[in-house]
């Protein structure tokens, strides 16, 4: 019989070992967001931005406080990197793990930078055929919204529908799998989401009549695990015969660690402007869908816009938070769509918590064969712009586009956005934007700002009550998150198609942003375009605007 002391010692070895095994087997437990009480204002040696929205709730909330209301005016440039001689338009959302920042270019290159010096660690340049969707007319919407990094691999989706896994340390391609057929009009712009050994991807192309889906692939091998089609096949259900469908998923799905669900936002049905051939609400289009991440089984669906005739996608990524409504704490989620409304739902049931709030000008009617003005237009509302959420203010910060379009039903020739079923022209009036804070407990504005240009890139909030964002003229702003005053601004010279992130290394805080304009910036001439990654820090060099391409 062994000594009792021996058994007591062995428990100190066994307990931590068991704990590690349990945490490793359940990654959801290991990566749950920290509770609010742990957000202590003290210097942080290192803080990453390891996911698209920083945390699994997609809040884009940074716990860092070194940069605060008292010293934000001291922000200056730490370093910058032009992403290529012929690179333009940047919708990439940088991520940082350890000391490495990962960004993508609009031609699907992946670049790993040393986050302190800006030195390129490695650069991966895939051979992507941007002409393969010439069925789309090759209308050139080649942008890439970033990567997902997990378990030593970097995942990227290319314009021509390949999901690729790269080595995180060298950028070497490890495997590749085809996600969809580009000859059908599918193309990719999204950053994937990785969780639990799975990579979740969707696609773009609803204006061409592709059939929308979200799929899960094995993160180690690239093998397809499941695919959920958001709309029926052509000629079935409400989808007319022919090349029609829609309901695409083009932004990173959100994994909810609290209730084990996966949320996706879907796009418009097609034909886009013409609804006569697709009777009824066209379910699961312009919707938030909740699926089981391991199986793709649908749990609930909430449709923001039924029988859409205006291209009002539920495009921006879902953000998760707790809402305190009528004395109850409700596990909730929010999404700001192209419809120009912010929706807040019960995350467990999909029920609307309160009346959606309009954050842009609203005035739209059924399209006809005569030109009609639609507000927001087909590139208005909130495009793909990620909402940020602050647990300190209980507010969601929403980027809005006031851009009306004149639309007209017309038969279009083959090619191009052939299933748009009409034409769209931006109105001659100078487009503006909005940036607003919505109290998620009440559904009312905390504050509301009209901005000089459309606001497209999204935002970031911090534990020092700052909200960072930028406009299409290249002006970067820091707002007081509680009151909405602009406390700092600087001209970076290139439009914002992405949102800032914050990280800390060796106790020093940095704020990074990729500037260069979005696809809409380029297509609608909303502002100067280029492709530069810029990193700011307190006491950095004076900020000088970057020179746009074409000047």
């Amino acid at each position, binding site marked *: 019989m062994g000594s009792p002391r021996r058994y007591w010692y062995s428990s100190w070895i066994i307990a931590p070992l068991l704990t590690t095994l349990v945490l490793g087997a359940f990654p959801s437990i290991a990566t749950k967001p920290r509770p609010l009480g742990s957000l202590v204002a003290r210097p942080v040696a290192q803080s990453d931005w390891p996911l698209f929205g920083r945390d699994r709730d997609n809040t884009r909330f940074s716990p860092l406080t070194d940069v605060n209301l008292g010293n934000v005016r001291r922000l200056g440039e730490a370093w910058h990197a032009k992403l*290529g*001689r*012929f*690179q*333009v*338009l940047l919708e990439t959302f940088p991520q940082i793990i350890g000391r490495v920042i990962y960004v993508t*270019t*609009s*031609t*699907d*290159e992946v670049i790993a930078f040393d986050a302190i010096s800006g030195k390129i660690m490695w*650069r991966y*340049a*895939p*051979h*992507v*055929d*941007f*002409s393969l969707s*010439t*069925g789309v*007319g*090759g*209308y*050139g*919407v*080649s942008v890439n919204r970033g990567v997902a990094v997990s378990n030593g691999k970097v995942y990227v989706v290319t314009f021509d529908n390949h999901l690729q896994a790269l080595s995180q340390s060298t950028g070497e391609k490890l495997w590749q799998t085809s996600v969809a057929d580009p*000859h059908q009009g599918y193309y990719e712009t999204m950053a994937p989401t990785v969780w639990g050994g799975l990579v979740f991807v969707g696609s773009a192309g609803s204006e061409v009549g592709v059939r929308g889906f979200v799929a899960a692939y094995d993160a180690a091998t690239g093998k397809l695990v499941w695919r959920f089609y958001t709309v029926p096949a052509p000629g079935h259900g409400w989808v007319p015969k022919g090349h029609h469908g829609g309901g695409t998923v083009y932004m990173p799905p959100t994994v909810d660690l609290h209730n084990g669900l996966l949320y996706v936002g879907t796009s418009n049905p097609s034909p886009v402007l013409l609804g006569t051939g697709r009777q009824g609400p066209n379910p699961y289009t312009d919707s938030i869908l909740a699926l089981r991440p391991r199986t793709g089984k649908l749990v609930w669906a909430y449709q923001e816009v039924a029988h859409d005739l205006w291209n009002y996608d539920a495009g921006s990524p879902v953000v998760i938070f707790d809402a305190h409504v009528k004395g109850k704490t409700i596990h909730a989620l929010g999404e700001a769509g192209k419809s120009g409304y912010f929706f807040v739902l019960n995350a467990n049931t999909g029920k609307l918590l309160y009346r959606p709030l309009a954050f842009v000008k609203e005035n739209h009617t059924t399209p006809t064969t005569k030109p009609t003005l639609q507000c927001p237009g087909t590139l208005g509302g909130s495009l793909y712009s990620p909402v940020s959420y602050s647990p300190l203010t209980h507010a969601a910060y929403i980027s809005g586009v006031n851009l009306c379009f004149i639309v007209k039903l*017309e038969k*279009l*020739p*083959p*090619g*191009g956005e*052939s299933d748009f079923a009409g*034409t769209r022209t931006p109105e001659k009036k100078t487009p503006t934007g909005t940036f607003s804070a919505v109290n998620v407990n009440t559904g009312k504005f905390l504050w509301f700002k009209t901005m000089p240009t459309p606001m497209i890139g999204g935002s970031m909030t911090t534990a020092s009550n700052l909200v960072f964002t930028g406009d299409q003229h290249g002006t970067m702003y820091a707002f007081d998150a509680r009151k909405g005053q602009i406390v700092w601004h600087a001209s970076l010279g290139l439009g914002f198609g992405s949102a800032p992130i914050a990280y800390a290394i060796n106790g020093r805080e940095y704020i990074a942003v990729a500037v260069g304009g979005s*696809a809409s910036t*380029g*297509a609608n*001439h909303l502002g100067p*375009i280029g492709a530069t990654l810029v990193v700011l820090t307190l006491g950095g060099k004076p900020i000088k605007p970057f020179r*746009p*391409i*074409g000047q």
Partner: protein
Amino acid sequence: MAVQRGSADHGGSASRRYPLVLALISGTALAIVGIVFAAPALASIAAITLDMPAPGWLGLKDRYLGRYHLTYSSDHSLVNQGELVVFSRAVPRQRPVLSGVLNLYGSDESNVFYMTHFVHAGIKLMAALNLGVYTGPVVGSFDVMCYCYNTMKAVFNVQDGSKVSLRFQRYSANPHP
């Protein structure tokens, strides 16, 4: 009997013929002098007329439509592989426009250019190279020096003055496989 020159009858027809001949000779001489002196000016006018680009590429569109592989590049760091697609792009309320998508892959970069404004000047074929979208900033031109037997010899003229010689071979007449 010799015809006496200067007789009234003969003298009358001879006197009309000679001034006519003289006038013709003088006029021709003047014309030659004029051409000699005016030639440079005329050549300039001709040159200006010939150099003005005209819309489209010479000949039938079908001659150029399709997909091409890059077979030669003079700058391997910028371009060591490439694909070109020339196709008719649908533009609402307009006739289809000859357009192109030029993918150029280098050792550590991947670039795409959208080709628009296809024009020709003499036998030289040109297109503008746009970044980002078809209406994006023009960063250079794609000048085809020779198109023979499905081979396109071109120069990528960048606006900063640099040039890259490229050669493409058409492998499919169908831009949309």
